[in-house]
C-alpha cells in the first residue's frame, strides 16, 4: 500500500465516525497520559516532598490487602497514592492502588522500596506498559468497529491513524509530519 496516499472520502467518514464512537476512550486516555507526564516531569519535587512528609510521619493510616499499614501520602494518579511507613531498615515507600468497588475495594501495593525516587520511577515505567496495553486494545476495537461498519473496505489508514494518535499521547513527542499521519488530521 502506498504509504503517502491520501485517505478516500469513505475513509475520512469512517475516521470521523470512529472518533465520535471512541470519544470517551480518547478523552480518558489523554487525561490519564497527561497525569503520567506531570508525574514524570515533577518526579524529583514529588520525591522530595514525599520524603519530607514521611519524616514527619504525617498522613492517615491505610491498610493494604496484604495486611501492611501505610501512611497515606500524595495522589500520584487516579486511585493511586504514594504512601510510606517506618520499617526495620528505615523509611519505606509504596505506590498503593485503591480501587473503589462495591464494599471496601482493593487496596494493593503496586511497588515499594526504601528509595522514594526509585519507587516513583518504577511506578511511572509500569504505567507506560498499562498505556501500551490500553492503546493496543483501543486500536483493536477501532479495527473491529470500522471493519464491521465498512466490510470489504481497506480501513488500515483509519486504524493506523488512531494508533499514531494514541502512541503520540503516550510518548508526548512533538507533532509529526503530515506524511506520517497518512493524510488524516489527527
Amino acid at each position, binding site marked *: 500500500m502506498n504509504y503517502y496516499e491520501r485517505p478516500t472520502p469513505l475513509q475520512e467518514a469512517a475516521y470521523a465516525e470512529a472518533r465520535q464512537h471512541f470519544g470517551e476512550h480518547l478523552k480518558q486516555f489523554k487525561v490519564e497520559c497527561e497525569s503520567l507526564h506531570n508525574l514524570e516531569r515533577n518526579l524529583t519535587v514529588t520525591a522530595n516532598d514525599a520524603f519530607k512528609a514521611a519524616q514527619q510521619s504525617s498522613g492517615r493510616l491505610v491498610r493494604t490487602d496484604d495486611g501492611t499499614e501505610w501512611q497515606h501520602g500524595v495522589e500520584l494518579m487516579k486511585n493511586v497514592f504514594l504512601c510510606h511507613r517506618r520499617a526495620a531498615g528505615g523509611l519505606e515507600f509504596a505506590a498503593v492502588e485503591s480501587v473503589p468497588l462495591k464494599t471496601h475495594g482493593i487496596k494493593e501495593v503496586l511497588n515499594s522500596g526504601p528509595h522514594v525516587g526509585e519507587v516513583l520511577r518504577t511506578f511511572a515505567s509500569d*504505567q507506560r506498559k498499562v498505556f501500551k496495553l490500553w492503546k493496543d486494545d483501543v486500536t483493536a476495537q477501532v479495527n473491529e468497529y470500522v471493519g464491521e461498519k465498512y466490510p470489504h473496505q481497506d480501513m488500515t489508514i483509519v486504524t493506523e491513524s488512531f494508533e499514531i494518535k494514541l502512541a503520540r499521547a503516550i510518548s508526548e513527542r512533538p507533532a509529526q509530519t503530515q506524511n506520517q499521519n497518512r493524510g488524516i488530521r489527527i
Partner: protein
Amino acid sequence: MPTTPESENQTAAPPAERLAYSVQEAADLLGINYYTMYRLIQRQKLKTCRVLRGKLLVPRTELLQLLQVELR
C-alpha cells in the same frame, strides 16, 4: 391489544448471560474508569482473552471472581 400468556412469557424471558465483556463494558459494570481496568488487567488481577482482531475481552467469571474476592 390483549396479549396471550405465551407472548407475555416471551417478553419476560431474561436475556442470555454474556460470557465476556469488552474492557469498556466491564469497567461500566464494576463502576470504575477505563484506566483502572487496564491497570487491573496489566497486573493480572483480571484475566482476559483476545478475540480475532486483538480486542481484549474480560470473561464474566473473572468479574464475578473479583467481586467475590472483594466481598470476602
